């Protein structure tokens, strides 16, 4: 019956758009928090950069609202690349562009589609930034989130359920960056002094996955 559930569970384009709006709202709400985190071990701009980027995304969203999910995600990626700047811009830009290519032509996403979108996005981030797990970057939130998503689905969890696991894993990964010594990004210049601070990029990644779990919660069966 759960299996059956899984089949029926998928998110439509409008839900994807709703997710993006939720992400933009979450980033705006956490703008100063992200700035604070970046101020401690970086240069205090992650919140401002991401907020600028997602505001641009919102402005652009209308023009692609009737397109397929792949086009939407690619457009978001290109918009982020040209408005965010810093490390976050190319990384999240690449993330969404790759996720978009993985979902080309689709009007709704099955759990499997979301897995490949996330997989492609994460791979894009890794190719672009060359970060390993444990380098104290967004990878430390994205990678466990993908693993948890796959596991949950593998154990037959429903989409909503799996999205929640995925978000929880991202949160653990985010918190897990606190004790780490940064090896990539500005924080790496601080060496040992980067220890004890949560990575801003991992935090913004968690916010995105949390938004997905919340917005797509209605994908829960019955």
């Amino acid at each position: 019956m759960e299996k059956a559930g899984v089949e029926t569970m998928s998110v439509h384009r409008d839900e994807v758009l709703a997710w993006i709006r939720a992400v933009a709202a979450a980033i705006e709400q956490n703008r100063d928090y992200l700035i604070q985190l970046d101020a401690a071990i970086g240069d205090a701009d992650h919140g401002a950069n991401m907020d600028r980027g997602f505001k641009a995304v919102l402005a652009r969203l209308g023009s692609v609202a009737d397109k397929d999910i792949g086009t939407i995600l690619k457009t978001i990626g290109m918009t982020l690349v040209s408005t965010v700047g810093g490390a976050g811009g190319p990384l999240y830009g690449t993330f969404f562009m790759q996720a978009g290519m993985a979902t080309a032509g689709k009007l709704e996403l099955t759990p499997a589609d979301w897995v490949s979108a996330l997989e492609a996005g994460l791979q894009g981030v890794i190719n672009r930034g060359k970060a390993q797990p444990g380098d104290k970057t967004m990878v430390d939130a994205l990678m466990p989130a993908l693993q948890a998503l796959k596991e949950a689905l593998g154990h037959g969890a429903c989409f909503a359920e799996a999205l929640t696991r995925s978000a929880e894993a991202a949160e653990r990964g985010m918190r897990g960056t606190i004790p780490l010594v940064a090896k990539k990004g500005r924080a790496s210049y601080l060496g040992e002094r980067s220890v004890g601070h949560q990575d801003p990029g991992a935090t913004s990644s968690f916010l995105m996955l949390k938004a997905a779990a919340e917005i797509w919660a209605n994908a829960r069966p019955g």
Partner: protein
Amino acid sequence: MKKLINKPEDVVREELEGLAWAHPDLVKVHFDPNYVYRADAPVNGKVAIVSGGGSGHEPMHGGFVGKGMLDAACPGAVFTSPTPDQMYEATKAVHAGAGVLYIVKNYSGDIMNFEMAADLARADGIPIESVVIDDDVAVEGSLYTQGRRGVGTTVLAEKICGAAAEQGYNLKRLTDLCKRVNDNGRSMGMALTPCTVPHVGRPTFELGEDEMEIGIGIHGEPGRQRTKLRPADEIVELLMEPILADLPFKAGDRVLLFVNSMGGTPLIELYILYRKAYSILEGRGIQVVRNLIGPYITSLEMAGTSITLLRMDDELIHLWDAPVLTPALRWGI
């Protein structure tokens, strides 16, 4: 936050407008995407040099656009790497058929954005070479980390490569020259006060009345260590020691000594620092053949300094002395 600005979100645009109105004979500014370029670009037959980075380091890079230095500079938001479209558009605006050299400071953001721009430009058939400047000895680089930051040597590389481009160096030779400058330059900085990013509104870190940060970069980030404030001479020793040991600089070497203000430190103090740095070098038999003293690579209004040593040879000296005509550096013209 005490600054002579209007709205934080307008700082970069208004600063660029001021630059454009102040030096119409030298530079033009393109908005959206933002880039500063030579008024006479493209300069035929010459390899073009494009640099860029976050704003807040003025006069770098926009103030270095002009004859004998940069063809274009791409300013990002304050302390934020510019976006690929800026470099891509700037590249097309200044490319004169001989290829383009990107001088990039070693920050993951800068590198990734310049990489994406290079991909776009190459797709248009424009030959692009990139040299990454990573001269900050405060950072213990390693294969597994980001490596060292790019700081003071960037200014010197832009001047020297700019002169070489004027003299007809091709892209390959210019790229090798830029790498050589980077290989021979070492820097280290310190802060007496933090700085305040306009859109943040509060200092990026706190420092006590009797504290200083040693080993800072140029983005208001904290340094490698916080220590008690010391007399200027001791601070210069703290900076020079790792710089000298790293290359290492040896007796008989000829160097350019660059004493930089982080923005809020006045000239009277820079000369006191220069005095000590010079005497340390003299004591080691290292000859200061050229120097640069002033605020050239800054961190907004931060009070502090960075010292850069560049080992010179006849070619570098010749190129350093070559005429330059930009808003911030000018001689020989």
